[in-house]
């Protein structure tokens, strides 16, 4: 886990190194253990830079940029290849000789032997850039899901790739203008990841699952190295298969040359991960050494505090000594909130990520560098009852299956109004659009100019909202919900110098889940029924049978009005008025009924604007 930058300039020769060093400094928190720079000795001017968070083989011999002694290829890499040992065995059989115990060196040899076929062999998370000496191409690639970030900014003469947008801005000397399309989508839907566009015009996320090449003469080429399967192409998951795959995914991710902890919210996903990690711990470099639970100092948030449940779980597991509870006041200071805004780099969908942000810092202070988390379980296996159950009912109604619809409604797993909320999207756009404008707080806050210029985007938003349950889960996993979670989780963990590993993101598990009927994954009376079935025999009923109603930072998202927003909405740049109606936002934030509301999205945009354009 690290931070990287790569710059290629096609214009007249120029010394890129000073600017690249400045940009690298902005990534220092991602890689506190070292810095490296490599300038390619061929035209066009090309520089690779790297900040290292040492996880596998912490010696300096495994530092980056790493150069292949056979070919001269150079590599900068952010992430972890969990199966690097088995790949290394294959490469040794092909004659490769290794001098480190790192995944980086495996990638370098793998590129030499397998070329672009390397990436389909990797199980892990990565964003990397290779300078291929033979062709002169700059090759760049992200993992299948895009767990690790990589951004591209290209003005036709200089192409910049970096782990974070801040590094690109540092190199260029400023941020590009806000992207009105992304802002509009975010304010209407709370999502911004449907395309590769970011909140900054001209800065694009590199698409996951693709290999990009940028040639010496400026040619761009992209090729997919991975396709997610459609139903019928693989065997669907059974509870047994799910347990087996997840256990292997946890075991693979437990290996590190630094201490490993887990996030334990007390809920189902993190308990399963912690349970499997404890079971798999069998060697010093393959051992869970801590489990961290976030809790609140104030008793008023007891309803959202799962620390007692987590404590009971760790006692039952026989490892109470590994458990650590970190307590915080739910309401952040203005400084802390703005630090979170700055570190995220783009507007984010919920203030609940404050919990992760704080917990990772505490974990890092206690000497841990790797954390296992349950990210992705809710999207992959249908954890959001309020999101998925109304869709199941709507689907039954669309198919004319009235009895089934009545039965699903009878489980009372969501408020009736939510079904109405879903059914509204079946109406003509001419009716939906004014309704949204009038009723959804974040849409009310959109400025008149932005609304007029971008309201044509409602058609695509409407089409997305009409997806059935099957399409919804797939889209959540690959295009909207999970990418949003991944972006926020990467920034909060990397800001503390923590490598977050998510076993639910193992591609083998995802492939099988994507071909498993959504209704089987979600279930009817609770959520994630397949996951609950898989672990019912080995986890306490209090974990397996409790409905999902809390989670990390659950209190924060219901305290919108109590956030220290007032001083932060003073002295905002006048241009923000092109995006947000700030007066309206202030008025609504003062409304005593504003607690859990999409108004956060408007506030997030305002705070982001203040941080990056004021």
């Amino acid at each position, binding site marked *: 886990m690290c931070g990287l930058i790569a710059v290629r300039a*096609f214009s007249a020769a120029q010394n890129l190194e000073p600017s690249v060093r400045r940009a690298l400094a902005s990534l220092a928190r991602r890689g506190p253990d070292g810095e490296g720079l490599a300038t390619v000795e061929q035209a066009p001017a090309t520089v690779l830079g790297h900040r290292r968070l040492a996880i596998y083989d912490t010696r300096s011999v495994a530092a980056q940029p790493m150069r292949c002694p056979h070919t001269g290829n150079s590599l900068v890499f952010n992430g972890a290849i969990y199966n690097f040992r088995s790949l290394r065995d294959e490469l040794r059989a092909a004659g490769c000789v290794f001098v480190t115990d790192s995944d980086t060196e495996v990638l370098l040899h793998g590129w030499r032997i397998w070329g672009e076929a390397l990436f389909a062999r990797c199980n892990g998370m990565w964003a990397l850039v290779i300078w291929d000496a033979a062709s002169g191409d700059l090759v760049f690639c992200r993992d299948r899901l895009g767990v690790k970030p990589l951004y*591209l*900014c*290209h*003005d*036709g*003469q200089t*192409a910049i790739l970096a782990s974070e947008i801040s590094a690109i801005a540092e190199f260029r000397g400023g941020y*590009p203008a806000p992207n009105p*399309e992304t802002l509009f989508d975010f304010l209407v839907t709370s999502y911004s990841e449907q*395309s*590769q*566009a970011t909140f900054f*015009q*001209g*800065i*694009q996320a590199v*698409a996951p699952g*693709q290999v990009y090449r*940028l040639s010496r*003469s*400026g*040619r*761009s*080429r*992209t090729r*997919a190295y991975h396709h997610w399967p459609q139903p019928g192409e693989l065997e669907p998951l059974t509870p047994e298969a799910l347990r087996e795959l997840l256990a292997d995914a946890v075991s693979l991710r437990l290996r590190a040359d630094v201490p490993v902890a887990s996030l334990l919210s007390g809920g189902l996903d993190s308990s399963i991960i912690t349970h499997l990690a404890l079971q798999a711990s069998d060697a010093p470099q393959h051992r869970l050494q801590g489990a961290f639970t976030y809790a609140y100092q104030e008793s008023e948030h007891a309803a959202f505090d799962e620390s007692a449940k987590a404590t009971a779980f760790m006692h039952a597991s026989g490892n109470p000594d590994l458990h650590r509870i970190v307590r915080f006041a739910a309401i952040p200071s203005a400084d802390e909130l703005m630090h979170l805004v700055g570190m995220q780099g783009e507007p984010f969908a919920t203030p609940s990520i404050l919990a992760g942000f704080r917990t990772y810092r505490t974990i890092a202070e206690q000497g841990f560098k790797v954390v296992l988390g349950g990210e992705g379980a809710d999207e992959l296996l249908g954890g959001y009852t309020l999101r998925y159950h109304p869709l199941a009912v709507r689907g039954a109604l669309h198919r004319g299956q009235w009895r089934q619809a009545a039965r699903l409604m009878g489980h009372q797993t969501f408020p009736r109004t939510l079904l109405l909320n879903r059914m509204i999207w079946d109406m003509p756009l001419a009716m939906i659009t004014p309704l949204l404008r009038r009723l959804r707080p974040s849409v009310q806050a959109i400025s008149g100019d932005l609304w007029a210029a971008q309201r*044509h985007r409602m058609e*695509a938003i409407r089409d997305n909202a009409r997806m059935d349950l099957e399409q919804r889960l797939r889209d959540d996993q690959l295009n909207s919900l999970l990418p949003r979670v991944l972006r926020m989780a990467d920034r909060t963990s990397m800001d503390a110098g923590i490598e977050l590993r998510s076993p639910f993101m193992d591609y083998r598990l995802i492939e099988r889940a994507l071909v498993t009927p959504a209704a089987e994954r979600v279930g009817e009376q609770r959520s994630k029924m397949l996951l609950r079935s898989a672990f019912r025999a080995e986890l306490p009923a209090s974990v397996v049978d409790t409905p999902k109603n809390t989670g990390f930072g659950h209190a924060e998202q219901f305290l919108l009005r109590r956030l220290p927003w007032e001083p932060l909405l003073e002295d905002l740049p006048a241009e923000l008025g092109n995006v947000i109606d700030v007066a309206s936002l202030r008025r609504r934030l003062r409304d005593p009924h504003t607690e859990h509301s999409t108004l956060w999205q408007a506030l997030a945009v305002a705070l982001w604007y203040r941080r990056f354009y004021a």
Partner: protein
Amino acid sequence: MPDTFWQRGLANDSGQCRLCGATLGQRHFWTEVYANSGQQLRRCGHCAGVYLAPGFTDQGLDEFYAEHYRQLFPAEVPWFSKERFFSWRGDRAVAQQRLQLIAPQLAPGTRLFELGSGFGAFLGEAAAQRPDLQLLASEPDVTHCSTLLGRAQVHFVAGLDTLEPASLEGLVAFHTLEHVTAPLATLDLAARALRPDGQLWIEVPDLFGDWTSRLFVHPAHLSYFCQESLRNLAQAAGFEILSCGPHPLPSLHGNLWLHARRPAALLQRPLHAETEQTIEAIDNRIMRVDWRLRDSLKALAKRTAMRLLGPGAVGEWQRWRHRHPGGEPQK
């Protein structure tokens, strides 16, 4: 024209210019309305490329031409008489005129390649008038590629990338470059396939032509060229431009014609930055075309006619209106 367009073949929207790969300075205009594909018309602030984004995946492009292209464009669908279909389209007449421009510059025995040969009218005429030529071509529509070949002996290949380097003396591409997903890569391959002094002729619709409806923009045409951007593209591929401008044939008014030579030393380079004046002129040209109620009604009327009468009859009516001479350019 279907109400909704099959979209699964669309690629990721990389946000990069189709021509030069830049991400900054991409102006987004309107969403394509011919097929409601969800693609957006954009202009690059660096190279002045105008393009639809996102493009197609390789598989999506193949499927688009195999399954959707002729349904989307009724003018491409014959109705009862194929003879009348081609007569009204004017394929052979246009092919003769193009050949008259090119043939005098082709040495005896020239190996001439046509990229995207369509129904084969040009190759048929070339074989008839210049039997000394060695003809090669690529055409993804294998069902129809021989229709107008006549007695021409043509060696069809899968694509430019399958040709030996420096194996051609001439290469023509009539209304092809705007269809490909990567125009610069295509011209790079063309330069590679041509021998030193080999010649290239390209014909594409002119962005500054007299189009007045947004229906001019559709998923089959992924790029839209002006003189400057076409010249820039060919130069970046290493070609020496001999001429580039409005089409010399009056019947092909509204198109661009580029004639270029492959130099002995091939130097590929990035596209250069276009002038602000060029970019401003392009923006003004595109912004002149709006979408009014009248346009919506016309599109609706066409969709309804397609449903009621089928694409063949609608296409016949369109061909009758635009029948050659003075008709649309054809392959």
